């Protein structure tokens, strides 16, 4: 069976790279490949993941410096050509800074670093990354961030809504949209968005930390299965 190489980008300060590596490796046929940020060649990978962490120490703004790393030019080209790209947490921040996804991620409204299991509603199962889920399904992925408050201009927010590009929203355990379910003040409880073409997904919660029921949730598996399937 043909292996599907999936690249995992490492910047100085990335710290979820090994979790993502293991998550990718657990999917049948997938073959994780390390990509150092200074590389200028994606080594023929068929999908790319920007893992979480604190690239460049979150200096200036989370993701602001990583976005200019040499590898990002290749990632942008890959995305423009339709290749699947997944950005988790700091990876999502980098994708917005790079302009590959709209909006920006600001400091959490309650000034705390939130680190907890988080219920999410799958708002659209009609994407490369979420077809394993059902629309309206409530899943649990951990969140761990200080800058997850998604903001964008009102017209961008309207477009995201109209084009059904909000992929995940924060909800409470019963799937209700309650004030205290939103961990960071994100507008419309947005937890993850996809680009217009549907091949670049960014989300703050960590599917890579929801890969095993023994550790609380295996709900994240579908994202990686979707990614590998899309890349194959």
């Amino acid at each position, binding site marked *: 069976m043909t292996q599907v190489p999936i690249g995992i980008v490492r910047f100085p300060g990335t710290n979820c790279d090994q979790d993502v590596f293991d998550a990718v490796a657990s999917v049948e046929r997938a073959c994780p490949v390390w990509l150092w940020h200074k590389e200028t060649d994606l080594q023929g990978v068929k999908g790319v993941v920007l893992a979480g962490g604190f690239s460049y120490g979150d200096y*200036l703004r989370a993701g*602001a410096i990583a976005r200019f790393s040499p590898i990002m030019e290749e990632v942008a080209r890959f995305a423009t050509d339709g290749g699947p790209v997944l950005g988790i947490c700091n990876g999502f921040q980098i994708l917005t800074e790079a302009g590959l996804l709209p909006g*920006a991620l600001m400091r*959490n409204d*309650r000034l705390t670093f939130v680190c907890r299991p988080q219920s999410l509603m799958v708002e659209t199962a009609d994407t490369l990354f979420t077809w394993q889920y059902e629309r309206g399904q409530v899943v649990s992925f951990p969140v761990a961030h200080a800058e997850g408050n998604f*903001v964008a201009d009102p017209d961008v927010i309207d477009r995201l809504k109209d084009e059904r590009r909000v992929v995940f929203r924060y909800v409470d355990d019963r799937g209700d949209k309650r004030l205290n379910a939103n961990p960071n003040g994100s507008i419309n409880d947005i937890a993850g968005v996809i680009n217009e073409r549907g091949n670049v997904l960014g989300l703050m919660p960590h599917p890579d930390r929801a890969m095993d029921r023994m550790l609380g949730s295996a709900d994240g598996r579908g994202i990686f299965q979707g990614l590998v399937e899309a890349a194959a």
Partner: protein
Amino acid sequence: MKAHVEVHIQLKPGMLDPQGETLEHALTAIGYEGVRSMRVGKWITFEIEGDEPDAVESQVEEMCDRLLANPIIERYEYHVTREER
């Protein structure tokens, strides 16, 4: 010409600034009354070589737009001071 550059960056008006709010509360808590509208920003200074003041200014502006500030959430202003040698 050597120029000294100062860049001031702040969240746009209306953007929630939890740091500013928290500092405002903290100042009130330690006895300073009447503190309002506190915003926390960034102040960046550097030196740059360049012959044409206009070219230096447009370069600084480009730096702000591309990296130093995120125009989606922040606004910036800069001051370029010439240091003649």
